[in-house]
């Protein structure tokens, strides 16, 4: 199925819009360029409403107003809303057949109120001779585009993320739903169940018609009982299998949480680390204080004085030693002279008789010398004192002990500060980790893991027990069937019934094997293809040091991603926005490719959150892998992708919201009502309708430059 054309009337902002889509196999991309608030989402909604009806609308159409908001007036008024879609179905046998689907409804609007009328849907096969009406349009569409696949083929970049984001059960349910629908697993399972019912019906018939043949009645009864029992056991096995897989996931998740928590730290262990860090910091601070004190004392020490005054001290010593050698130090003059006055003769041998004139003269001279000496005594005393007391001080300093001590104490201080800083950091890190720890403690996480592990093992045991029971019942069925066959072969009617039973049994076997093949081989194909596309989109080179190494879909329908060393990554937490988007688009493309379903992929803003290589790569791969690709892109999404669009885009339309004039649009579109305008401009062009300003003009800013002057 490929879309050819869509015409929309009065669907909200889309009052009159007609789009053509490319069906060229070489240029299979159609682009609708539109800025934000220019009708992209409305267009996607209108397309889905046209194809699927009200159930495709938000809230399944409840409280959804179809008609334009400005259609209301004071008077009650009827507005006809319609979506017309032309599509082509290709078949090798009958070639291309073109259909036109028209869905319309009337809304009565008055002021802010509206009332829905009846929705009509009609389908025509378009032929050269005219349009032939087709019966039951919804039934015609449904096999090709079932409602459950709507979100696979018609999606927006954000909604598609729900395949890998949100609650894990919801993710799995959505992934499983998409895979089952697209691969046709549901159809096969339903067929298997129905053929089983047919077989059961045949058995009941044999039992009814057994008449007086007790042996045949008994064996039929036994078979009916076994055949009724077997689906119940299968159902239980399925239920336990689901539980087992879910519990396996929960166990793994609990294990991951525990590992994360342990990596972040055990609360008790972290508290120990914090206490050790505190003790280390306190000890280092003590050492630093002591070193600071020693440092200060060093400046008060004799060493520093001797070191700094070495030169003057040397000179002083020379002078004092000189005075000592001259006998001026110590001073002995006064006691010698005073002693002489008590003697009858002088040192020189002359008499000092106080009664004689000469003696008196000499004595006066000695007294005069004593008085003179006394005048210089104070200086003399101090020099003498200095000479003796400064002997140690003036002794030359050996080596440089002060500077050595200075360096030593300085190093001690630095070491203590460094230790203090390191312990402080360790303390803060431990505190931060403790603050970061979830409320649940490690023990609680261990308990959870252990609980899930036990429940998982229990489910596994139950599953195994029931599988064994099922195998045994199936063997019983085979034995009973053999016995029944012998009994049935005894008459013609029995032989006929036996032939039917054989056919039903063959059907059952084929359908079971086909289902198993689809679940394993086909699912693996989807998984492998998704992995290849995803890695190519994000440019992950596994042979190099890629952070993301592979992605896969598990048997339990979970999409999982692995990093280096096969470390599992949680897509909703460990992948960036661009990678998540690439993964979901890779999943959708892989699924549609493997299923060989030929339907258009319509994606609104697929390149949001992406840039550079990943952006262009997603666009290129999505185009190559789709049978028809219709993208709604903003101007920003298009930037950098022009060359790829040059190569693949077969149709381009631009949608413009006139309400953006004059703020964003350059020219007045000349439209008074609220409606989206369409032009044929491609991603490199603009016209009077769609020309827009790309950036906010600072010159036109209403903001004044703030006054930067300050009063002194």
């Amino acid at each position, binding site marked *: 199925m490929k879309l050819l054309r869509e015409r929309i009337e009065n669907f909200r902002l889309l009052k009159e819009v007609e789009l053509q889509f490319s069906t060229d196999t070489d240029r299979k991309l159609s682009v609708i360029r539109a800025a934000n608030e220019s009708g992209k989402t409305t267009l996607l909604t209108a397309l889905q409403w046209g194809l699927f009806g009200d159930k495709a609308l938000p809230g399944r159409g409840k409280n959804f107003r179809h008609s334009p908001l400005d259609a209301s007036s004071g008077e009650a008024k009827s507005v006809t809303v319609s979506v017309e879609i032309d599509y082509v179905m290709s078949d090798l046998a009958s070639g291309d057949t073109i259909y036109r689907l028209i869905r319309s409804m009337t809304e009565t609007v008055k002021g802010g109120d509206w009332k829905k009328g009846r929705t009509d849907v009609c389908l025509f096969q378009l032929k050269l001779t005219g349009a032939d009406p087709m019966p039951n349009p919804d039934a015609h569409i449904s096999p090709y585009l079932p409602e459950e696949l709507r979100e696979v083929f018609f999606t927006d970049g954000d909604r598609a993320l729900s395949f890998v984001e949100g609650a894990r059960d919801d993710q799995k349910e959505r992934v499983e739903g998409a895979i089952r629908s*697209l691969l046709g697993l549901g*159809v096969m399972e339903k067929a298997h169940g129905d053929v089983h019912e047919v077989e059961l*019906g045949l058995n009941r018939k044999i039992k009814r018609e057994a008449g007086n043949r007790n042996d045949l009645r008994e064996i039929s009864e036994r078979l009916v009982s076994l055949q009724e029992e077997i689906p119940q056991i299968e159902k239980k096995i399925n239920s336990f299998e689901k539980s087992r897989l879910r519990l396996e996931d929960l166990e793994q998740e609990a294990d991951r949480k525990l590992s994360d928590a342990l990596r972040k730290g055990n609360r008790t262990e972290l508290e120990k680390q914090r206490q050790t860090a505190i003790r280390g910091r306190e000890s280092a601070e003590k050492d630093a204080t002591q070193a600071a004190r020693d440092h200060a004392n060093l400046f008060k020490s004799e060493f520093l004085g001797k070191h700094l005054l070495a030169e003057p001290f040397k000179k002083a010593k020379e002078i004092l030693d000189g005075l000592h050698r001259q006998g001026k130090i110590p001073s002995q003059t006064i006691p010698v002279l005073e002693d002489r006055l008590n003697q009858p003769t002088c040192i020189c041998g002359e008499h000092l008789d106080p009664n004689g004139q000469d003696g008196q003269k000499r004595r006066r001279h000695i007294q005069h010398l004593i008085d003179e000496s006394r005048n210089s005594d104070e200086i003399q005393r101090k020099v003498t004192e200095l000479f003796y007391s400064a002997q140690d001080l003036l002794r030359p300093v050996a080596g440089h002990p002060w500077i050595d001590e200075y360096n030593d104490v300085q190093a001690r201080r630095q070491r203590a500060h460094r230790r203090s800083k390191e312990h402080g950091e360790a303390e803060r890190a431990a505190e931060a980790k403790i603050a970061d720890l979830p409320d649940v403690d490690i023990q609680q996480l261990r308990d959870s893991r252990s609980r899930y592990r036990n429940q998982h093992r229990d489910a596994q045991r139950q599953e195994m027990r029931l599988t064994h029971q099922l195998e045994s019942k199936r063997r019983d069925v085979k034995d009973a069937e053999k016995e029944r066959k012998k009994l049935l072969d005894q008459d013609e009617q029995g032989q006929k019934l036996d032939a039917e039973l054989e*056919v039903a049994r063959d059907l059952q076997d084929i359908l079971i094997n086909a289902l198993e093949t689809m679940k394993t081989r086909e699912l693996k194909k989807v998984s492998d293809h998704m992995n290849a596309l995803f890695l190519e989109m994000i440019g992950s080179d596994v042979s190099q040091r890629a952070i993301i190494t592979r992605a896969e879909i598990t048997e339990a329908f979970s999409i999982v991603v692995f990093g280096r060393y096969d470390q599992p990554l949680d897509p909703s937490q460990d992948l960036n926005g661009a990678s998540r988007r690439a993964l979901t688009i890779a999943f959708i493309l892989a699924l549609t490719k493997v*299923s*060989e379903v030929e339907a258009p992929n319509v994606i609104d803003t697929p390149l949001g959150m992406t840039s550079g290589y990943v952006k262009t790569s997603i666009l290129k791969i999505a185009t190559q892998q789709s049978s028809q690709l219709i993208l709604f892109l903003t101007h920003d999404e298009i930037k950098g992708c022009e060359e790829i669009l040059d190569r693949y885009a077969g149709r381009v339309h631009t949608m413009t919201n006139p309400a953006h004039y004059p703020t964003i649009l350059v020219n007045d579109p000349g439209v008074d009502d609220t409606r989206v305008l369409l032009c044929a401009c491609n991603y490199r062009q603009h016209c009077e309708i769609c020309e827009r300003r790309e950036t906010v003009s600072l010159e036109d800013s209403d903001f004044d430059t703030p006054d930067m002057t300050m009063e002194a």
Partner: protein
Amino acid sequence: MAYNNKKIREVLQDQIVDVPQRCEGYKEEFTRLLVNVVNLERAHAIAKRSVVKDIANEVHKVGMFLYRSRSASDE
């Protein structure tokens, strides 16, 4: 188209080689039956009515084919 018949046929085709040739022409009849069953399931998925009776009729036809073929070969 969704749940592509081609894909389902392809998988079923792989399985059909294992079906025993219970009588001459049985595999061909059986293949037709299988295609009919899948088509009935698809058609009835839209029509919302029980498909068991229709499948039972199809099984009956092939069963009778088998019975007649065996009877003919016995004679």
